[in-house]
């Protein structure tokens, strides 16, 4: 119980749909969602497959708590081999889609093969079928969502879809559900596109059964109270969103600016949470309209924004005047500080376009930042950009490229390669701020040392959501550590990585971890799911998942050499702020991390480690 115990296997090549029983032994070992789907992927595909070939598979997966009334329990993940990185990819999203899939009676959907013609997958409880998506091919997320709802005459249909970006191989194309929630990273949308799979549309009304309903309700109520009593989850996140970090991270000197040339951005305040709440001079209204919550969430960190109707981006485009998904911190950073653009309305418009066309705003913004540096060096000229003046700080260039990349047109196709391939193409591979091909998020590892190790060792390439030591190093959760030192960071990174893998496999949002530890998650799982679930066991599950992902990546051809950072971060010191004079101390932390993990000096899990984790 809590798992539905069955999943759908869809062979796109043959056009078949089958129901299969969930492997209960694997559920015991890998919990659900990220962990369990990673196990299925690792068992079912050769890690060396071309991610965009029919031999890759893509799994939409829920966790055991998804669809229950535990707080934030609406999460699902998309697991596949990522085309941006060549690593295992697992992108997590909120909104309503995940809970709907679970309520339709399915723990996950495994898509394999490649359809001959564009299709979408429609699930209505037990009925599940592939349908013709020709009318939606080439359409945006917003058009597809509206079109499918109209076609099925069901305004409550929950749609996860790609845009033209995913159809045309933009390597950081994402999957957007519920109009503006995204399984964002690593190019999972391009995998969908390569399979001619336009969308998954789901309607479920079965409910989710739990093991001990009375104990579950009591536990859920207690843990919701913990969120309600915590200043971050009850006040900070709903009021200011994740964007509260813009000024914080700038102040501590860890806000990567202009493709990581600097660590502080003088425009940070103008694109921050505080600015989003201020009335604009032009129309007296604030950019932020309201906050919003994903399914069952009692935190509600989501931002809903409305662009200034007189702003250049939409003055002649009334179709963008409605309120829609606004800036989260990572997007605001990538579109803003990374590119040197401090025009809040332009960033909001670029963010709308990222949602509308299903591209990852982090990788998009970071790639534009790299392109801007290449342009200023003369390696890219206006000839390549089609006349776009691609200098740092140009809002016009940013918004034009968001549209071109989202539609996979013109110079947008080059941006759609991602920063690593773009910088290689134009002769400056060192200017790509990536790990394993994936662009960095919004924390400079010179100013927050633990994040350097976290990025270098992340199993899906540079990422903040695999081990968010910022919580400890900056915010003091669960304990404050010094962001400028490397001491103790190996153990800290490992602890965050393992705990996060468990959170990500349960069906809940990682933002609960500002108030919850696994001690708060375990009683909810234990009341909902068969078996016995303790915090200690969950940590073991998390560590097992981490090692499973690592094994996949090693088999895919990654080596310890890939656990590194760009030269700029290892050699060029921060120029301002508390980290002035410091580069990343990765070389000190990495051997200690391998040792903590029970890996060899070459970064390979030892036989003993694999045995301890039931991986051998």
């Amino acid at each position, binding site marked *: 119980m809590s798992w539905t115990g069955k999943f759908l296997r869809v062979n796109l090549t043959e056009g078949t749909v089958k129901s299969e029983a969930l492997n209960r032994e694997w559920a015991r070992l890998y919990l659900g969602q990220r962990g369990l789907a990673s196990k299925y992927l690792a068992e079912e595909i050769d890690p060396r497959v071309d991610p965009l070939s029919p031999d890759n598979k893509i799994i939409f997966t829920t966790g055991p708590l998804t669809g229950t009334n535990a707080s934030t329990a609406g999460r699902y993940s998309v697991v596949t081999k990522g085309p941006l990185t060549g690593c295992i990819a697992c992108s997590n999203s909120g909104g309503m889609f995940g809970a709907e899939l679970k309520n339709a009676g399915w723990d996950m959907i495994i898509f394999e093969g490649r359809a001959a013609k564009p299709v979408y997958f429609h699930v209505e409880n037990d009925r599940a079928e592939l349908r013709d998506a020709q009318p939606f091919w080439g359409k945006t997320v917003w058009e597809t969502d509206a079109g499918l709802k109209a076609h099925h005459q069901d305004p409550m249909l929950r749609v996860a879809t790609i845009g033209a970006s995913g159809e045309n191989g933009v390597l950081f194309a994402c999957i957007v559900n519920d109009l503006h929630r995204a399984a964002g990273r690593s190019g999972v949308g391009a995998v969908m596109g390569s399979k001619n799979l336009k969308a998954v549309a789901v309607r479920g009304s079965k409910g989710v059964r739990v093991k001990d309903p009375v104990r579950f309700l009591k536990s859920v109520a207690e843990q919701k109270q913990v969120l309600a009593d*915590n*200043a*971050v*989850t009850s*006040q*900070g*996140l709903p*009021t*200011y*969103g*994740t*964007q*509260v*970090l813009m*000024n*914080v991270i700038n*102040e*501590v*000197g860890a806000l990567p600016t202009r493709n990581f040339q600097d660590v502080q951005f003088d425009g940070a*305040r103008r694109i921050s*949470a*505080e600015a989003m709440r201020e009335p604009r001079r032009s129309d007296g209204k604030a950019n932020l309209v309201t906050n919003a919550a994903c399914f069952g969430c009692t935190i509600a*960190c989501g931002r809903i924004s409305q662009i200034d109707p007189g702003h250049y981006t939409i003055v002649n485009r009334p179709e963008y005047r409605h309120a829609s998904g606004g800036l989260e*911190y*990572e997007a605001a950073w990538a579109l803003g500080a990374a590119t040197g653009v401090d025009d809040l309305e332009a960033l909001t418009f670029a963010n709308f376009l990222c949602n509308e066309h299903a591209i990852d705003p982090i990788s998009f913004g970071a790639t534009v930042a790299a392109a801007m540096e290449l342009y200023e060096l003369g390696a890219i000229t206006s000839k390549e950009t089609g006349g776009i003046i691609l200098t740092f700080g140009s809002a016009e260039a940013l918004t034009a490229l968001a549209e071109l990349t989202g539609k996979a047109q013109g110079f947008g196709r080059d941006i759609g390669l991602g920063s690593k391939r773009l910088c290689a193409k134009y002769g400056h591979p060192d200017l790509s701020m990536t790990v394993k091909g994936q662009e960095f998020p919004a924390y400079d590892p010179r100013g927050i040392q633990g994040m350097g190790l976290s990025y270098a060792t992340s199993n899906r390439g540079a990422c*903040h*959501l695999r081990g*968010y030591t*910022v*919580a400890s190093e*900056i*915010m*003091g*959760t669960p304990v*404050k550590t*010094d962001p400028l030192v490397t001491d103790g960071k190996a153990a800290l990174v490992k602890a965050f990585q393992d705990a996060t893998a468990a959170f990500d496999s349960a069906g809940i949002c*990682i*933002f609960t971890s*500002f108030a919850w530890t696994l001690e708060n998650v375990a009683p909810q799982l234990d009341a909902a799911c068969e078996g016995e679930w303790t915090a200690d066991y969950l940590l073991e599950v998390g560590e097992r998942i981490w090692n499973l992902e690592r094994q996949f990546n090693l088999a895919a051809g990654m080596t310890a050499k890939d656990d590194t950072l760009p030269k700029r971060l290892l050699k060029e010191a921060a120029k301002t*702020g*508390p980290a002035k004079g410091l580069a990343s101390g990765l070389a000190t932390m990495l051997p200690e991390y391998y040792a903590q993990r029970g890996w060899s000096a070459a970064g390979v899990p030892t036989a003993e480690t694999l045995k301890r984790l039931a991986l051998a």
Partner: protein
Amino acid sequence: MSMATATLKLFSQLSDYLPPGADQNQALIEIGPSTTVDGVITALALPAGKCHLVLLNGVFIPPSERIATPIRPGDALAIWPPVGGG
């Protein structure tokens, strides 16, 4: 002779406590030779529970050190209530 000044920045829910004339979440405050981090927090009647992330020139000052940490001319003192994000 004019007094020496430092920059005070209050963010998030503490924005309401900014002194008159503040702009963009910051204001200049006058400081004397004995002004400390704790002294500024007390003088502005900032709720102690909300002064979670206290940064002097970007460096975290733990609660136990706030009484003894002086503010010098040109320093930037920035304060937030508990924050989270990512």
